[in-house]
């Protein structure tokens, strides 16, 4: 059955095609803004989450106190000492404990200078969580592994040498030899970011950076990720029994805090997109008011020959609904195209784009667009249905 009131609304929209079209474009923009922003945010969350969750079984221990050095000229030390490390090892059970030296250094390759992180690790620990892409892992001495970013930027190959430390003519700087190049790790959640780093043996590190038996970080890699809470509790009980000595964090808490931050950002940018829908709502309201004002006499005719108020209301709500549906459908299609392009441009990968939690923003945006339209039509429809038929008929 075709509804005569729907038919009337369709004809009214067609009669004022340009005006209706312009009002719908407002909705299109609003829908696109909300959907593509939502998709962008979600894709960002998904991609970060996937990168981080690979190290989700790692507990990160860092020092919570600053030890002030008594030696002049030596910087204050912030680290986990040997006895604390022993406590950690004894309380970590079967899990793998990896003490890590970490600093930042300048270096030179030939005449090019650079800056990056430097990690000192026990050579036997390296293979437990790092992957060598090219060449071999280190055994000690002046062997080093470099991250792919450094390797690329400085054209490093196996056997290349780097001078570590600040370029200074009066000091002879120690030299390391590239034994291998690491696989890219991206953003990591175990707080070991090796892409722009040099990894050397702990022996070499303490020889040159004076951090003997003081570790910047200790990672505990769990055999079973489900035991993360017990392990953390055991370490906390043992190590922090008197004072808060180490701060215990893990990838899952970092992950959830990062994703919740990204979620907040997503909501925020969607709200900015929502502003355009508010503007669209005003223009729909305006078009609906114009439609009502132009059709006062027609409304008078409808009411006087026995049309119910509800039917008149329905006619105008249909009109708003049609504008909303046009806007939402066009907006939905464009959201898909624009969203895909934006995600591709900003994240560099669309592998998460087709996930339900990403695509769901298209119907969300469309529904919000239609609802906004119908809400904007409520008052004009109400006004039309409550006209006095005599006054309405008399108007020209």
């Amino acid at each position, binding site marked *: 059955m075709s509804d005569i009131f729907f038919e*009337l609304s369709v004809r*009214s929209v067609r009669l004022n095609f340009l005006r209706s079209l312009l009002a719908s474009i407002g909705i299109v923009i609003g829908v696109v803004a909300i959907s593509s922003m939502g998709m962008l945010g979600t894709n960002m969350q998904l991609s970060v989450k996937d990168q981080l969750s690979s190290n989700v079984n790692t507990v990160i221990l860092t020092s919570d106190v600053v030890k002030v050095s008594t030696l002049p000229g030596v910087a204050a030390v912030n680290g986990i000492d040997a006895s604390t490390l022993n406590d950690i090892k004894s309380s970590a059970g079967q899990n793998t404990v990896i003490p890590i030296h970490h600093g930042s250094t300048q270096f030179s390759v030939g005449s090019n200078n650079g800056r990056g992180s430097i990690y000192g690790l026990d050579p036997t620990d390296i293979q437990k969580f790092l992957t060598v892409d090219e060449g071999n892992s280190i055994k000690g001495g002046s062997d080093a592994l470099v991250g792919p970013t450094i390797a690329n930027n400085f054209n490093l190959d196996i056997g290349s040498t780097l001078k570590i430390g600040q370029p200074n003519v009066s000091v002879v700087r120690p030299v390391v030899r590239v034994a291998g190049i690491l696989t890219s790790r991206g953003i990591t959640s175990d707080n070991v970011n090796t892409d722009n780093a040099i990894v050397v043996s702990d022996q070499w590190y303490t020889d040159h950076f004076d951090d003997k038996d003081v570790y910047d970080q200790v990672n505990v890699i769990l055999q079973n990720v489900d035991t993360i809470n017990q392990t953390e509790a055991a370490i906390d009980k043992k190590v922090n029994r008197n004072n808060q000595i180490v701060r215990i964090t893990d990838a899952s808490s970092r992950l959830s805090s990062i994703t919740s931050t990204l979620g907040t950002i997503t909501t925020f940018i969607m709200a900015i997109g929502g502003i355009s829908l508010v503007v669209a709502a005003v223009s729909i309201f305006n078009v609906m008011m114009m439609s009502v004002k132009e059709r006062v006499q*027609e409304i008078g*005719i409808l009411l*006087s*020959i*026995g049309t119910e*108020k509800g*039917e008149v209301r329905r006619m105008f709500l249909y009109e708003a609904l049609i504008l909303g549906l046009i806007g939402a459908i066009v907006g939905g299609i464009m959201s898909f195209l624009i969203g895909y392009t934006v995600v591709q441009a900003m994240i560099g990968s669309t592998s998460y784009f087709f996930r339900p939690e990403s695509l769901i923003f298209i119907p969300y945006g469309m529904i919000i667009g239609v609802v906004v339209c119908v809400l904007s039509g409520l008052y004009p429809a109400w006004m039309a249905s409550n006209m006095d*038929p005599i006054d309405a008929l008399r108007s020209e």
Partner: protein
Amino acid sequence: MSDQSLIQLVDVSKIYHLESGDFIALNHVSIVIGENEFVAIMGPSGSGKSTMMNQLGILDVPTTGELLIDNRDVAKMSNLERTHLRRDSIGYIFQKFYLIPLLSAYENVEYPLILKYKKRDTTGRARAMLDAVGIDHDMSAHRPNQLSGGQQQRVAIARALVNDPKILLCDEPTGNLDRKTGLAIMDILCDLHQKGKTVIIVTHDPKIAEYAHRTISLEDGKVVES
């Protein structure tokens, strides 16, 4: 005249509250219109004709007094009941035709049926009504603005009749038509009266009023002759 009363106005007054003071459009008017009557309501402009028309058409309710249609008090009805009474019992014919501009002639006639039965007409009644007033197939596909005044008024009559109302309420039905077309329209109305409709014509034209069997004259909101 039938002795069964269809419309009864009992001491009806209509007062408009204006900034310049109260305006009494109808002043204690009492009339009775029986079934199958042909009544003309006459009077100069400002005499209360339109107000009377609005009362009879249940577009408005009296300020005081009672308006009974089929012995039902209009003032005591809900808005929806009045709407349904307008839809089912009264056919309106206006001077300016007042067809719905977005609907074709056929759809205009079909419209009251849709209001009543909540579905499109499949009985052929709308088509039959158009045939009866001389609007053919081709013409009925046109929008009102593509029809002449006479054709529009015929469509309006067909629309007024399609729900088989007891009362035909005509407000200057020939006012916007040339003499010849006007006469043709009046012939249709006479014919409808013959077929049992109660026809009420509001007019200021004595020639039109001559068709009626009874004339009610209004002056300053009062009935001066009935």
